[in-house]
């Protein structure tokens, strides 16, 4: 198990190194000079040159990559070209919204999907299964921004249970923060839950056809006991894969929901940074997201090994 974990860790570090290089190069070849963009179309060439020197843009590519990478390792993400404030601080503020939102949504989606998927699989072809499958069809098909607006309309404007948008900050207390994130989290979670339910159901149905399920029944387990004791854990591998992918998506892909609810999250930050050629912010946020994705994959790999002993002995 330890060897398996170390091997995964090594692959994590290598992936991060390669990813940082790719991100740097891609952002480098993107058209548009941050300095001329910041100073506007009427700027003098020598003013632009001075700003480029100040931003470090006149150095060689390798030197800039190394200083960027080394800075990042020590927590220094550089200074935003647009706002002239440290990028690390900007990202940290946004992360405190995006990360809890993603975790909140993922928790909701898992809490919905597990029981729904198991319920549907246990009642394959019966009305309960058909109802769950119909609901997930709807959940997958529904655009989440529209769903978000419906939530605002019903729960914020009509019922007044929640605010229509914005985030008061965690200083106002845990409960106030969670309360503000509830509608966005539901809007994000339901489509994901629909996908996860379908994955859980089909993984479980595959397992129900396995020989060892029949063995379990021959030992005297009831259908329900066999499902819970032998089915669910074996069905977890594909489900864990999807959960890993969904977390990455929720962290970076919440941009539309952040717009609908006026949340100061990472998605909006990267959107603004791209519009204003704030390359250093773009690089840092993208790197951070890559870091998150790779770390989540690492954790999913470890979870695989916990679930399935065959992976522990394989190196």
């Amino acid at each position, binding site marked *: 198990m330890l060897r398996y974990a170390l091997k995964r860790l090594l692959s994590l570090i290598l992936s991060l190194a390669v990813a940082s290089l790719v991100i740097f190069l891609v952002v480098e070849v993107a058209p548009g000079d941050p300095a001329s963009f910041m100073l506007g179309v009427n700027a003098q060439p020598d003013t632009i040159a001075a700003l480029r020197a100040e931003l470090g843009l006149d150095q060689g590519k390798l030197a800039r990559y190394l200083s960027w990478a080394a800075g990042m390792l020590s927590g220094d993400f550089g200074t935003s070209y647009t706002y002239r404030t440290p990028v690390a601080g900007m990202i940290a503020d946004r992360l405190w919204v995006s990360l809890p939102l993603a975790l909140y949504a993922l928790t909701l989606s898992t809490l919905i999907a597990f029981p729904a998927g198991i319920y549907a699989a246990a009642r394959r072809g019966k009305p309960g299964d058909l109802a769950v499958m119909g609901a997930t069809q709807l959940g997958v098909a529904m655009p989440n921004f529209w769903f978000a607006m419906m939530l605002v309309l019903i729960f914020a404007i009509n019922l007044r249970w929640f605010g229509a948008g914005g985030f008061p900050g965690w200083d106002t207390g845990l409960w106030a923060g969670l309360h503000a994130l509830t509608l966005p989290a539901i809007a994000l979670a339901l489509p994901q839950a629909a996908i996860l339910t379908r994955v859980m159901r089909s993984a479980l149905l595959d397992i129900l056809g396995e020989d060892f399920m029949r063995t379990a029944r021959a030992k*005297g387990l009831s259908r329900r006991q066999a499902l819970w004791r032998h089915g669910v854990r074996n069905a977890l591998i594909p489900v864990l894969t999807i959960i890993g992918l969904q977390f990455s998506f929720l962290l970076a892909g919440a941009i539309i929901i952040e717009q609908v609810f006026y949340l100061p999250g990472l998605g909006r930050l990267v959107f603004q940074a791209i519009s204003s050629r704030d390359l250093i912010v773009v690089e840092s946020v993208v790197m951070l997201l890559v870091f998150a994705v790779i770390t989540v994959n690492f954790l999913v790999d470890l979870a695989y090994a916990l679930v399935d002993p065959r992976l522990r002995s394989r190196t």
Partner: protein
Amino acid sequence: MTLLDVTSLSVSIGAFQVLQDVSFHVDPGEIVAVTGESGSGKSMTALAILQLLPDLAEAKGYITLNGTQLLEQSEDGMCAIRGQSAGMVFQEPMTALNPVKTIGAQVMETILIHKAMPREQAEARAREVLDRVGLPEDRFPLSRYPHELSGGQRQRVVIAMAIALRPKLLIADEPTTALDVTTQAQILELLRDLVQDYGMGLLIITHDLAVVADLADRILVMRNGSVVESGHTVWLLRNMRHPYTRMLFEASNHQVALPQQPATAPLLEVRNAVRDYRTPRESLFCKPGTFRAVNDVSFTLNRGERLGLVGESGCGKSTLTRAILGLEPLQGGEIRLDGQPVTTHLKPASRRKVQVVFQDPYGSFNPRHKVERLVTEPFHTLPDPPTGAAHRDLIAETLTAVGLSPDDAQKYIHQFSGGQRQRIAIARALITRPELIIFDEAVSALDVSVRARILDLLAELCAAYALTYLFISHDLSVVRTITDRCLVMRHGEIVEQGETEAVFSNPQHPYTQQLIAAAPVLPDLDLGAA
């Protein structure tokens, strides 16, 4: 008193009658075998007893286990009976165990689910039954996982689960079909001992008449969901009254007359072939190890010769086959086909000299292609494949040669039975008239009657096309009748080779002797007198 009494059992799935009026009984300490070909209803009978039938199946009649009417039991009542009064062992040991739970947990589960004893005692009992089935604690602690065990060891775990509560009835559905002959002999021995020690009744389901003849006190022969004949083993085998029983018996022991063929020049030469596989690294920074699957193998196959290759699973038969087909590289030695070296980058001109027929008649065809396209797949190795009328004629001729109709060319593969599919596989191998055909367990998945007809077909094709083939099989009786010479392989090495009849009647190597001794044989009966 009768332990299990089945009277007028009928099972239907929708309008389809799976079992009709099946009646038999099993006494304590008695071994009753149910035999027949696939689709005869053997397994359905077993599943019906434990009420583990598919969802839509409906059972009628009477099944009485120790005085309890099973068909009248509620689902909860059946759960209490399964595992406690009646245990069951299935065919596929590789998949019958939950891969994510330890063997100890799985054996204990049988005990704990019936609340038969507290956890500590259950653990001790689990240990005791695992010891009893031949899995001692020092090598097989309760914390082992199924993937760490071989097929035979897993089957022992499944048996341990089934007997953990000393049920009065044990049902074993093809318990040794997926195992090697030596492992099969050990598992059958274990079952026999358990019946004796515990006084259990054993209902064993098997298609293998030789196993039945050797093990069972009484036999039940089934066909199309009905019992055609039953009786005490010796009596039944002597008096086989039903033609189906006689047909089964004859087909199991089917002999073909191979036409004499002059073995001329060498066609396939294997010289000191070595195939290594990399094994996982022991630690992160050390070199990966190697596993030698084929070790210094040398043999020659002459043109016109029919060569057999026997050995247990994992002995390297398949690896050697893939190397001969040019699908895997060698790490030493060489393979020459018709004088040309075989490599993984074979040119079409060399590639078409050898064709192969695989074991699984269901998995080896693309289901979306018609037979016409399936059998002409090897045409891509020809420099100028026939077109138009010549193309059609060749397909028709080849299909006729394997006993099918030219009209079958327009059908899809799902329209054929297993035996017919294997004929199509042979047609596909035959159509380019290769120098060498490799049969890789080509009749192992077939029923005995179908197998007998395919063996007849091979003998006919030998007469018509002077075939040269390499016939790989774990079934010794088949190799004995269908080959001129044979090789015995073990742990990647050829331990014995020679004329087939000589190897079988007078095996020299201890391993060959052990293999032949372990293979169950049909009793020698004079069928004509019956």
